[in-house]
């Protein structure tokens, strides 16, 4: 009899299962200008017709810094962090899926759930370090951000990128975006990738 959970690989060993192909499309979010309007969340919801409770793009509010006293320079700042799927290079969700319903596309690195194969066991949600995959209670399967693959295939940008009122979301091939960051925001502090290469090798870039 197999060992307990023998078929579930942890995210680090998922390295053998997938890696970033020649092309990885991703999103760069400059947190400096995100005002927390949630337009990206709404655009995503409208574009992908997600049910109540499922949001592919969630915006979290973070307070950074400390309030010293009224005389000191203001040290407190609020950031809004929109978090779509990171479309990782070593997706933990892909490794955790017992039926192989999650795949990472060769041509653009987008990680997708095959809803026909999905059995709704939520192992992917347990595995994802960002807690991204969500359960669709009507269809009884898991759902996640598809990087608007249906739009990308037509040469358009994801709905969240197009709609951003602060124009602070950018979409493109990872190499191009990195170059853009270094050009346009070289004075800005770059946060790089959440978690970084030691975990699931996420693709979404954040700067502040």
């Amino acid at each position, binding site marked *: 009899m197999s060992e307990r959970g*023998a*078929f579930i690989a942890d995210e680090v060993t998922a390295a053998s299962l997938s890696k970033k192909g020649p092309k990885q499309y991703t999103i760069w979010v400059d947190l400096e200008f995100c005002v927390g309007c949630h337009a990206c969340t709404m655009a995503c919801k409208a574009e992908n017709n997600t049910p109540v*409770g499922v949001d592919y793009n969630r915006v*979290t509010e973070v307070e950074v810094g400390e309030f010293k006293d009224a005389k000191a320079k203001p040290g407190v700042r609020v950031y809004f962090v929109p978090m779509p799927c990171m479309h990782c290079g070593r997706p933990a969700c892909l490794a*955790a899926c*017992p039926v192989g319903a999650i795949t990472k596309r060769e041509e653009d690195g987008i990680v997708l759930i095959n809803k026909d194969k999905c059995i709704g066991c*939520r192992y992917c949600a347990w595995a994802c*370090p960002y807690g991204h995959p969500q359960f669709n209670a009507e269809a009884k399967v898991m759902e996640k951000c598809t990087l608007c693959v249906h739009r990308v295939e037509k040469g358009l940008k994801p709905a969240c990128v197009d709609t951003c009122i602060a124009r602070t979301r950018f979409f493109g091939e990872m190499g191009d975006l990195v170059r853009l960051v270094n050009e346009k925001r070289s004075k800005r502090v770059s*946060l790089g990738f*959440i978690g970084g290469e030691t975990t699931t090798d996420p693709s979404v870039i954040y700067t502040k």
Partner: protein
Amino acid sequence: MTIFEKITTAMTEHPTTIEPALCIRCKTPKSDCSLCADRCPVGAITLSGAGPEIGPDCLDCGVCYAVCPTGAFDRKRGGDEEIIAGMGERLAGKEICRISCLRGDAEADLLVHCLGRLTERLLLQPLHLNPLARLEIIQPLCKDCPMGGSIALFADLLTRVGHFYDLLGAGRERISITRIPLHPVRHNSTAGQNGSRREFLGAIRGKAMDMATAMSPEHARTGVPAPAVSERQENRKRAALLELLRSLVEKRELRPVRIPARESITAPLAVNSRCTACGACAAVCPAGALKLEKNSEIISLLFRADLCVNCGVCAGICRDGAVERHETVLLSRVLATDDVELFTASRQECQICRLDFIGQGVDGICPLCLDIHRRQQETIKNIFATPSREL
């Protein structure tokens, strides 16, 4: 149909087909089941992400059909039904059923390509025809035979069949093995061809295959990619075996036979308290032996011992390690048709994700939502806590 069409049809219509909905590998790509590929005597079966595929080297020996526990392989010609249909006549009045292979004793009552082709059903059928039946298996020196790879599980098969003979009160002593030297391949018009004829027919088959591929690529392959929707299919191999067992049991008193779990065709499953009622085991079970049932109050995991094939995928898949196997099992369990409740708990619905959950929630929120919230908070903390990074 012209003669040529008849020949090409016979050549290109492969007698063995694979049903992806029954294949353990197709349903659960991570499971390492490779019984068919391991046992194929000529290595004609390749395993890929889409499951098993039978290549052009296939000898049509039927070992893959015999070895697959879920009956994912089906044969239009040369299946167990066909062999059993001819048995009644050949064994009429005989007490001893002599069984051998093409390299063994050509005068045997039951002759197969290779002893690896034998199944529980074929070895129990003589008992059905004659309650005093004895099996004499004439086995040549398999290790010298090029098909020797398919014999590796033969001893296990005899152990299992011996258990059944014990169960039925006939006794495992009724099965004996006689070893003889390896003989050259016999001329047997029903079972096989000699070297030169095989080459000739192989050449024709190759040509016909090419033609078929050119005409319709999808139909030339016997392996089919896994279906998008996993419709449950009946394990007809198991159903046929159970039918035979039930008719054998009618005339007999069952002995209480308790055997080690690994020698059983059904698993003595148990579910411990780590179960979260996620239903993954029930969804991946290739035999449909596990069922997650819900009503407004309760979630239960139900098990059918007669359907279980003891493949172990349920235990391998469970991320909480909740599915276990007892050490031994009462063999008569394989005839039981009742649903056994392995696990039950009161059902709650999460306020946030509307998922069913059991056990420890907080304020009606499921453990997964709580954990996700914690993970997201940590991620946010990290993004600002760590110093800036080179891209």
